[in-house]
């Protein structure tokens, strides 16, 4: 089983990329987490329906294929101005079309988030879960706000706070169960 990790923050030392690595260390046997190259989000053109034809830009095809090939997705998002980073929203917009065969359609997804502030990107997580739901994804009904995230990780990217780590493990368990449930439904 392969889970795609998508960080809404693209920078090399991103706290949310560290959160994805913390999640990767908690996966049950037989599950791997592959992080989407941030360049796959950075290189996307802004969504334009005129460009959304049978011949989409190459970068769009790469993103859609990466999502289609994953059994599920773990999103880790920061919060920019109280909401989702524009680049991440743009990626969701591309991956939600064409509506009847969208890469995100019925895809099990879960959302976590980290921010250096006091609230752990909780608004962004809410907005991201809303957008993913409208896009047709199968959204795990919980969140993980990691606040003051510049102090939340150990040297090996594990979460220092045991309660947060337990919650992250729970979200992963729910995501894996949603993937299994989908496999049973379409079998």
């Amino acid at each position, binding site marked *: 089983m392969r889970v795609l990790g998508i960080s809404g923050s693209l920078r090399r030392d991103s706290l949310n990329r560290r959160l994805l690595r913390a999640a990767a260390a908690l996966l049950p046997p037989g599950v791997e987490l592959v992080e989407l190259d941030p360049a796959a989000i950075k290189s996307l053109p802004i969504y334009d329906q005129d460009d959304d034809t049978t011949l989409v830009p190459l970068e769009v095809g790469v993103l859609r294929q990466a999502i289609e090939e994953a059994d599920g997705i773990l999103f880790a998002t920061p919060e920019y101005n109280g909401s989702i980073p524009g680049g991440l929203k743009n990626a969701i917009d591309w991956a939600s079309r064409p*509506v*009847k065969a969208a890469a995100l*359609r*019925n895809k099990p997804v879960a959302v976590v988030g980290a921010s250096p502030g006091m609230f752990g990107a909780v608004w962004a997580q809410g907005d991201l879960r809303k957008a993913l*739901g*409208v896009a*047709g*994804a*199968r*959204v795990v009904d919980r969140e993980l706000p990691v606040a003051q995230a510049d102090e939340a990780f150990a040297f090996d990217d594990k979460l220092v706070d045991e309660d947060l780590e337990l919650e992250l493990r729970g979200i992963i368990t729910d995501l894996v169960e949603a993937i299994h*449930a*989908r496999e049973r*439904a*379409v079998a």
Partner: protein
Amino acid sequence: MAATGTTTTIPQGTWAIDPVHSSASFAVKHMVVATFRGRFEDVEASLVADDAGAKLVGTVKADSIVVKDENLAEHLKSPEFFDTEQYPDITYTSTSLRRDGDELVADGELTIKGNTHPVEARGTITDPAVTFGDVEKIGVTLEAIVDRTKFGLEWNAPLPKGGFALADDVKLVVELELAKS
């Protein structure tokens, strides 16, 4: 005028749906002020009546939902609403059918999105009519009002000045043309 009183007998036999001339639809209050309607294209139903009693069963393919906007239809199929991948069938089985003249009262169990609840439906039933090719047909209509939130359809959105975009109560309407088989 020979008739005295009204018949309480469901026409005997096994009656199968004519899908082209049957429908299953729904109506729900939208934005407080209006009624929004949609339908399901793929409807199966049969009515069996014999000396032991009568039973109506039906299945609607949730994925066959039709509304005027394609994007909305896909949203309604998604996990936020009917989750048609996980729950492809909406099913109904009557537990009691009672006829009084043209009127029909049906108690039954409705299953949507894996949630089963009893519903009482009211409508009409006809006596058999001989149609083209000597095929005997009857007509059955039923209406029921259900609380969608009990069936796992809990989506809503608050309106800016109070209230919600979508009502909880949904009217279900089936109109069946059934042929004797």
